[in-house]
C-alpha cells in the first residue's frame, strides 16, 4: 500500500501567496498554507510576525482598519475566494467565528450574550433560543455553573468563564471554522487548561485555528503548527514532527528559545 491512496484531508482554508499591508507597510510577504478541516492548527511566532493579522484576514475583520488591505494572493474558504466583491460578509463571519485575545462579552446578561448572534440572524422563537443557549453553554462546560443566573450580567463571571462564554457565543452562531486569537494569554494556568480541553473536544465538529504565544500550548493541543517570522512562513507541518524534528534551523532556534 502506498500512502497516496489515503484520502488526503480536504483543506478548509487555502491561503495562496498572500500579501497584506497596513497602508504602505507590508506585514505579510507572500504566505501560502492550507489548513485541514476538523483539526487544530496553531500559528506561532514572535510578536509582530503577522500571525494575528493573518488570522484576522480569515474573517475579514481587518476590513475595519483604515488602510489595511490584501495586496496580493488569495484566501479560499471552502473553495470560495473571500475577497470577491459579491461575498456576503455577514454569512462569512457567521460561518467563520472568532474569539478574541481579551475576552469581550457584551455588558448584558449571560443569556443575552449567547442569544446575541442568534437574534441577529433572525431567531425569535423563545423555546429555540432557550435550547440553543443551553446547548452552547453545555458545550463549553459552563451550564452547571451559570444555569441559575442566566439573567445576571456576564461581567460577574471570572476571566476564564468569560472567555468560555465568548467561545459559547461563537458556537451558538453555528460556525464551521473557529478562529482564536491568543485566547489564553490573559488567563491563569487552570483556566487555560480548561480552554485547551474544550478545544480538543471541539475539534470533532469544527476546524480550529489558534494563534498562540505559548509554545507548550501549541504542542499540547494542535495537530498542525505554522511558525511565522517577520511576515513570512518559516515552517508548517505536523505539530509533533515540528517540535521533535524541525526541518528548519530557525524553527529549532525558536523552539529552543534561541530567538523570538
Amino acid at each position: 500500500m502506498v500512502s497516496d491512496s489515503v484520502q488526503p484531508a480536504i483543506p478548509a482554508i487555502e491561503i495562496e501567496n498572500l500579501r497584506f499591508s497596513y497602508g504602505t507597510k507590508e506585514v505579510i510577504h507572500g504566505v501560502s498554507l492550507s489548513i485541514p478541516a476538523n483539526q487544530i492548527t496553531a500559528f506561532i511566532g514572535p510578536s509582530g510576525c503577522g500571525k494575528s493579522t493573518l488570522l484576522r484576514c480569515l474573517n475579514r475583520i481587518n476590513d475595519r482598519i483604515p488602510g489595511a488591505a490584501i495586496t496580493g494572493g488569495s484566501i479560499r474558504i471552502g473553495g470560495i475566494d473571500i475577497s470577491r466583491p459579491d461575498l456576503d460578509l455577514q454569512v462569512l463571519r457567521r460561518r467563520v467565528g472568532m474569539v478574541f485575545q481579551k475576552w469581550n462579552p457584551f455588558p448584558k446578561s449571560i443569556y443575552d450574550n449567547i442569544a446575541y448572534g442568534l437574534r441577529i440572524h433572525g431567531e425569535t422563537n423563545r423555546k429555540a433560543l432557550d435550547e440553543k443557549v443551553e446547548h452552547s453553554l453545555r458545550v463549553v462546560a459552563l451550564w452547571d455553573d451559570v444555569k441559575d443566573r442566566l439573567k445576571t450580567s456576564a461581567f460577574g463571571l471570572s476571566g476564564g468563564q468569560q472567555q468560555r462564554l465568548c467561545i459559547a457565543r461563537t458556537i451558538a452562531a453555528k460556525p464551521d471554522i473557529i478562529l482564536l486569537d491568543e485566547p489564553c494569554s490573559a488567563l491563569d494556568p487552570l483556566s487555560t487548561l480548561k480552554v485547551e480541553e474544550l478545544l480538543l473536544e471541539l475539534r470533532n465538529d469544527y476546524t480550529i485555528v489558534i494563534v498562540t504565544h505559548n509554545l507548550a500550548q501549541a504542542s499540547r493541543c494542535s495537530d498542525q503548527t505554522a511558525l511565522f517570522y517577520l511576515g513570512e512562513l518559516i515552517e508548517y507541518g505536523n505539530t509533533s514532527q515540528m517540535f521533535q524534528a524541525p526541518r528548519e534551523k530557525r524553527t529549532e532556534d525558536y523552539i529552543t528559545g534561541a530567538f523570538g
Partner: protein
Amino acid sequence: MKNPEQLIRRGVHRKGIAEGIVKTFLGGMTWAVIAVALMIFGRMIWDGAPVFFKKEAPFVNMDFLTKKTETLHVFDDAEGIRHQLPASEFHQWKSSHGTDAVFNEQTFSYCGGGIAGPIVGTVLLTLLSVMMALFFGVSAAIYLSEYAKQGRFIGWVRLAILNLAGVPSIVFGLFGFAVFVLAAPILTDTPADRSLLAIPLGFTHLSFEGWGSSLIAGAATLACMILPVIITASEESLKAVPQGFREASLALGATRWQTIRKSVLPFAMPGILTSSVLSLARAAGETAPIMFTAAVAAKDDLPWEGVGSPLGVLTGQVQALPYHIYTLALKIPTSEYTERAQFGSVFVFLLMIFLFSAASVVLRNRVRAKMKW
C-alpha cells in the same frame, strides 16, 4: 550623616512665606467667586421666594404658576384703600363699584396675574428643540464616528462643528429669522406673494415662504444652537465604547447598523444624555435666538388654546420665560408693584432649569447603572 543640623530651619523661611501667599491668593479668588454667586442667588431667592412660596397649604403660589399674564391695575377706592388687581378682576370691580370709585389709577403691563404662558412656552420650546437636536445630532455623530472615512475632510467638518459652538446666540437668532421664519418650505394651496419659490405639486404647492414667527421656528433655531454640543459630545461617547464590543458583534455576523444599534449606541447613551442635560439648560435660558423667531411679550391664549389642530400649536407664537424677564426688565419702570412679577419670574425660571437638570441627571444615572461595563 554629615551636618544633620541642616535639617533645622534658621532665620526667615522664604519658601514657606511664598507658599502661604500663593495659598491665600488662590483661596481668596475662589471665595470671591463664591461670594458673587451667593449674591446673585441670594438676591433672587430673597426677593423671589416670597412670591413663589406662601405660608398656608399647598405652600406654593399656584396662582402665579397657573394664571395668565395680565396688566396690573393699581388704584385707590373711595375710602382711600389701595387695591392691586389684574385687568380681568379690575374690570369686574369697576363694573360693580362704578367708574367713579376709582382714583389715582396706575397700570403696569405684564405685572398682574401669573406666568403660565411663559412657563408653558419655555417648556415646549426647550423640549422640542432638544428632541430635534438629538435626532439630527446623534445621527450626525453616528455617521462621523462609525461610518465616515477618517481623513482630512472629516477633520475639517469636525472643526467647523466645534466652531459653530462659539457663534454668538444673536447670530443664530438672525439665522433662524432668515431661514426658518422667512424661507423654510411649507405646503400651501395659495403661495404668498413674498414666497421665494413655489413649486406646484399638482394638489398643492411647496412654497418657500417660511414658517413665520412660531414655536417650530424658535425650536429649530435653538436646535441649531445646541447642535454642535450634542454632536461633539455624542461622538465622544460613541468613541468611548470599547472596540471589543464592535469586533465581537461584527465577528458574529452582525451588519454595521445592527452592531451600532445593539452594542454601541446603548452604551453611549449615558454620555449622550449628559450632553443633552447641558443643552437643555442652555436652550431654556437663551433669549436672543427666540427673540425674532418665536417669542412674544404678551399673548392671551396658551399655545393649545384657540387652535384647530395639533399643528396649530407648532405654528403659533409663544411666550417664553427668558424673553418675559427681558420684557419685564426693559419695558417697565421698576416699582414696588412690579417686583413681584420680576423677581417671581426669575425665581421660577431658576427653579425650572434646576428641575430640568435634576431630572436629566437622574435619568442619566439610571441609564448608566444599567449600561455600565
